């Protein structure tokens, strides 16, 4: 049976906003916490109205519907409010906290990885911590070294945390709904360069399961695993490659933890070649992790070395030409494929 789901065009940012609104409507324990996610708290003319709706406007309009008791502007106090969100989750709420930029994790990491992510294990399975932490990642807007990192690899390394890296508006909506409904600690990485990206987004409240990769483009000649915004870069590369007679299969893991190993291995078994595209720094990263997994479990199916196309092992530079050199480009992806195709 084919179920027709109506869709309409919206941006990645609007899709996230819609998911938050749906989750808050369906579950009164869902509360949002973050710095200026409404803005203008206790300003007389903004009682139930936002000044900003988040620094990028992602949470715009939510305070109007849900009020300031569920859309909580926090002080600039990442340890304080991320920790509060973690314990609120362990005691009966289902909070969605916004860590404005992932680069700020240094200010609150203890509360995420030592507290929330370890509660269930340390407490012998007798606790759950259903908190979602939304955070911005990505270079491309000259936000410089402290506002442009990806760093999802750091969180993927840590047990007790799930890592979600949506690359399209539809995925952003469906995955965020699943993240909020999930009973574990979920880091939800929003690529700031994608906020304006438009795409077809289904109506309704259906989530996309965590741990299911999506084949964004089918092909038989090479597998390209691309993460977050790198899916867009890989799709551009696929066009060039197609003109050269190389059909690339582009796999978007959508979540790095859990990782859909099966879909990746099945694709490599078909194409016998693998390129991994990742905007995070290259050492001990999601890219090296996926490469190691395929080397371990799919070595016999490979006909060529695994190629990694990643950011360099540097902080993110400021100056536009430097930043452009930092982010993996479609050209670099094409080049990597040519080396092994």
């Amino acid at each position, binding site marked *: 049976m084919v179920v027709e789901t109506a869709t309409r065009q919206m941006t990645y940012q609007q899709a996230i906003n819609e998911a938050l609104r749906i989750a808050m409507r369906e579950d009164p*324990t869902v*509360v949002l916490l973050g710095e200026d996610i409404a803005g203008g708290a206790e300003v007389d003319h903004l009682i139930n109205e936002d000044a900003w709706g988040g620094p990028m406007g992602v949470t715009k309009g939510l305070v109007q519907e849900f009020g300031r*008791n*569920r859309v*909580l502007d*926090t*002080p600039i*106090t990442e*340890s*304080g*409010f*991320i*920790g*509060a*969100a*973690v*314990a*609120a*989750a*362990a*005691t*009966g*709420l289902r909070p969605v906290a916004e860590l404005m930029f992932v680069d700020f994790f240094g200010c609150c990491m*203890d*509360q995420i990885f*030592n*507290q929330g992510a*370890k*509660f*269930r*294990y*340390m*407490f*012998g*399975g*007798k*606790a*759950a911590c*259903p908190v979602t932490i939304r955070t911005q990642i990505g270079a491309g807007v000259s936000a410089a070294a402290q506002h442009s990192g990806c760093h999802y690899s750091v969180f993927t390394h840590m*047990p*007790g945390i*799930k890592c979600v890296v949506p690359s399209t508006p539809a995925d952003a909506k469906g995955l965020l709904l699943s993240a909020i409904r*999930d*009973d*574990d600690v979920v880091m939800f990485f929003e690529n700031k360069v994608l906020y304006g990206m438009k795409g077809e987004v289904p109506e309704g409240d259906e989530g996309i399961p965590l*741990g299911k990769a999506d084949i964004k483009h089918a092909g038989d000649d090479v597998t390209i695993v691309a993460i977050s915004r790198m899916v867009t870069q890989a799709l551009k590369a696929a066009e060039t490659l197609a003109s050269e007679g190389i059909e690339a299969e582009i796999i978007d893991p959508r979540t790095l933890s*859990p990782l859909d190993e099966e879909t990746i291995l099945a694709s490599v078994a078909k194409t016998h070649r693998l390129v991994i595209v990742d905007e995070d720094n290259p050492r001990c990263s999601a890219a090296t992790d996926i490469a190691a997994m395929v080397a371990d479990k799919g070595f016999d199916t490979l006909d060529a070395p695994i190629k990694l196309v990643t950011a360099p092992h540097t902080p993110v530079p400021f100056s536009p030409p430097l930043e452009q050199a930092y982010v993996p480009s479609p050209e670099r992806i094409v080049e990597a494929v040519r080396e092994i195709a």
Partner: protein
Amino acid sequence: MSATGTAAIELDRDTLLGMYERMLQIRTFEDMAGKNFAAGLIPGFVHLYAGEEAVAVGICSQLTDTDVITSTHRGHGHCIAKGVDIPGMVAELMGKSTGICKGKGGSMHIADVEKGMLGANGIVGGGIPLACGAALTAKTLGTGGVAVCFFGDGASNQGTFHEGLNLAAIWNLPVVFVCENNGYAEATPVHYHCSASDIANRASAYEIPGVVVDGLDVFAVYEAAREAIDRARRGDGPTLLEAKTYRYYGHFQGDQVTYRTAEELERFKQRDPIQALRGALIDRGLATAEELDAIDARVTRQLDEAWNAARAAPFPEPDEVLTDVYVSY
């Protein structure tokens, strides 16, 4: 030996005997933990609470399971005072499968969410934002619960202390912050590590009440805590309560405690909080020495049984290492 405060007059015999028994359970638990650690029965680190019993019991005896506490690396006393199962705690210290956390947490991570015990904590100051979160839940869901946040003098220098107090103050959260000032952050005395002569003074920076209380006097603690808990329950916001107390053992078992004198320890033992309560009960004719001795014997028997049961209990199966990481994965 003294016991002060109007609470001393108001509390009835059953409540007082219950508090006496709880304090004694903590003392006996810790003394036995010290011995069994030395005997090699407890892996890892243990940080003992003996000497500080009046703080945990003076406060937790006023809480219900709806109220949540956060604790510290020196958390056994808070757990017992909050009603966590003692045999389960003993087995946890030994890493046995019958432990309250199935042997996965150990001394520093004993927790029982059902009892409103959100965990001992291996991170100094780590529980302070967590208490704000538990209080946010209580406030949002209207449970009427409060959060009590135990931490030491050392934690008052962590950023989380300042972030937590500010957050609780601006959101008017039902939290009681309880600083157990035992004079030393590990091996460093409070007069060196803390800029304030009273840590309670730091409350003024957040414009919340800051109260110093004699942490060796369970009545004084009870009374100060009652006001702070009532205030939180009324919706009037947080309080910082500083209980001046003392730990009989070192920072951890194995600590040679070269940073303080034997005379200092002896001076504090002269003001032992359990002996003080015992004296008050007898002086006021609420209990006889024989009745209290019977409680002492019952507690010793209970703890002996708990240790014996834990010794006999099995260790977890090795494949247990893989469970309880996620609810679903």
